[in-house]
């Protein structure tokens, strides 16, 4: 935006704006329609002549979702899982990321690094069957722990690579100086490096949180007890529960999507640069 040269109105410029308008309509219409439907009373939804702006906006569908369904239980479960996963991912990936950044050449460590890169490429569908059996053997099906373990495993590789990228940017001289002053190596990480890598930690935390908040397949497969459901499989269940009550479905969808979307938009810059760092410097 900084070096925008503002040209006079001309046909190419008008055409460009027209294209932007079409593009944004395509990208945003479904989300706006979701919110619009959620705010309409049922007769306005089930009509052959729908309007974009609700003529008599109502919060009845939101009331139904919040008051007469397990929506809030799902949210609580998802929050529990996502915060635990985020904390665990941060600890595990910080340790590993630091080791890869500073001691990547030690025998065995470089091998583990390659394993990380490969590990993050393994798609969920290939793991869902054997992991289901594993969780069954561990007696963890229908327990949130099954999801916490799975999601942490899935977010650790990329988080580690992202954090390695951030640690690479922290100059080693600072650490050497601290060590010369008698600070033991484990303390160097805690006292010197971590405070410098806070933006990287934020990015990683956001990534881990959103990953587990949005994940569907494993939550849907591992948890069948309704009061332990997480949000995304819970929402999918609503489709069966309220088959034709689109107002309620869209209200639930709106409630679930807005926090994530706002967090993303607010933090997108960090997230994208972080992913790019992890991806290019792996």
């Amino acid at each position: 935006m900084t070096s925008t040269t503002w040209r006079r109105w001309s046909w190419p410029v008008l055409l460009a704006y027209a294209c932007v308008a079409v593009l944004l309509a395509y990208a945003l219409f479904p989300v706006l329609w979701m919110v619009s439907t959620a705010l309409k009373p049922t007769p306005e939804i089930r009509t052959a002549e729908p309007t974009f702006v609700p003529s008599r906006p109502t919060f009845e569908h939101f009331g139904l979702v919040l008051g007469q369904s397990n929506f809030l239980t799902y949210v609580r479960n998802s929050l529990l899982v996502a915060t635990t996963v985020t904390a665990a991912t941060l600890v595990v990936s910080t340790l590993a990321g630091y080791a890869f950044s500073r001691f990547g050449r030690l025998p065995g460590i470089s091998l583990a690094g390659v394993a990380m890169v490969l590990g993050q490429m393994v798609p969920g569908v290939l793991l869902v069957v054997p992991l289901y059996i594993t969780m069954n053997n561990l007696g963890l099906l229908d327990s949130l722990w099954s999801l916490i373990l799975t999601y942490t495993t899935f977010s650790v590789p990329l988080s580690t690579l992202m954090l390695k990228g951030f640690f690479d940017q922290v100059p080693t001289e600072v650490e050497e100086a601290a060590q010369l002053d008698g600070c033991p190596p484990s303390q160097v990480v805690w006292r010197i490096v971590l405070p410098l890598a806070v933006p990287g930690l934020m990015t990683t935390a956001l990534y881990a949180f959103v990953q587990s908040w949005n994940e569907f397949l494993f939550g849907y497969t591992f948890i069948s007890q309704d009061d332990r459901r997480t949000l995304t499989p819970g929402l999918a269940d609503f489709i069966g529960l309220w088959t034709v009550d689109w107002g309620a479905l869209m209200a639930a969808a709106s409630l679930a999507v807005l926090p994530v979307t706002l967090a993303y938009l607010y933090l997108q810059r960090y997230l994208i640069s972080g992913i790019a760092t992890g991806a290019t410097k792996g």
Partner: protein
Amino acid sequence: MGIQIARPARAAPALRLPRPLARHGFVYLFVLPSVLLLLGFTVWPLLRTFWLSVQDVNLVRPGSEFVGLANFRTQLADQTLFWPAVWHSLVWTVGSVGGEYLLGLGAAVLLNQPLRGRGLFRMLVLIPWTVPIVIAAMTWRWILQPEYGIGNVLLVRAGLLAEPVYWLGDLSTALGATIFVNVWRSFPFYTITLLAALQAVPKELLEAAAIDGASAWERFWRITLPHLKGVSLALIVLHVVWTFNNVEFIWLLTEGGPLHASETLATLVYRMAFRTFEISEAAALSVMMIVLLLLVGGGYAVLGRRREERRTT
């Protein structure tokens, strides 16, 4: 997203310290938790998949039996589910990634123009990608719904359709409709990534070409596009892998239906394991998918290395 498997890990800045292992013991402790997680919940399950694929296991009855390659033979001979699923996987992957790339590139070029409000537009175009797949599926099911769905209402009103179409429930349109929804949700990631790459195209080169009389189209085709090659290849390979293995979109939109019309290999694995409980058949399918993945990954590694060599010579 580390797709550069073939390339040796870049040397990290090493501390100048004495080297005895005792001093570096803590490094191994640092790596241990992540390695344990990876071994326990990625490597071990994968090995187990290979083991399951040569046995006869069914979740509803106990016991197992070694059957060699029988599961693979059964699949490869299956004309009703397996081969149609292979074809649907191909259409689903190529259609989705192709559509996403073209739309993503178009949007990136558009949003790279010096327009007022560009920053805001860039942020807004990212929104579909932030919507969880479950919610994207719910919303589009509503839009594409045959009776009151706004998609049908608008198309009929515009005269493009004579009567509403049950997009997700019709044999001929189900797969296409799921691809359409996938493109909507996934293209912004391409846009954002390609925008970053577009900003790295040297401006002097474009200006020099313009002075030499190259048209906008020639500049794009001869200068901009070649500069996007590396990023594009990475984006495409990554999304081919993701799309090919995606279960959620199709499962939530059509469950692979109607009559398996949108069933891909990925949804077939899921259906066999958790609907019909044919664990071993699902494992055999998974193994075939792993082999395919390795082929794609290997191909990408070879391509990447060739590019690298060409650059250095």
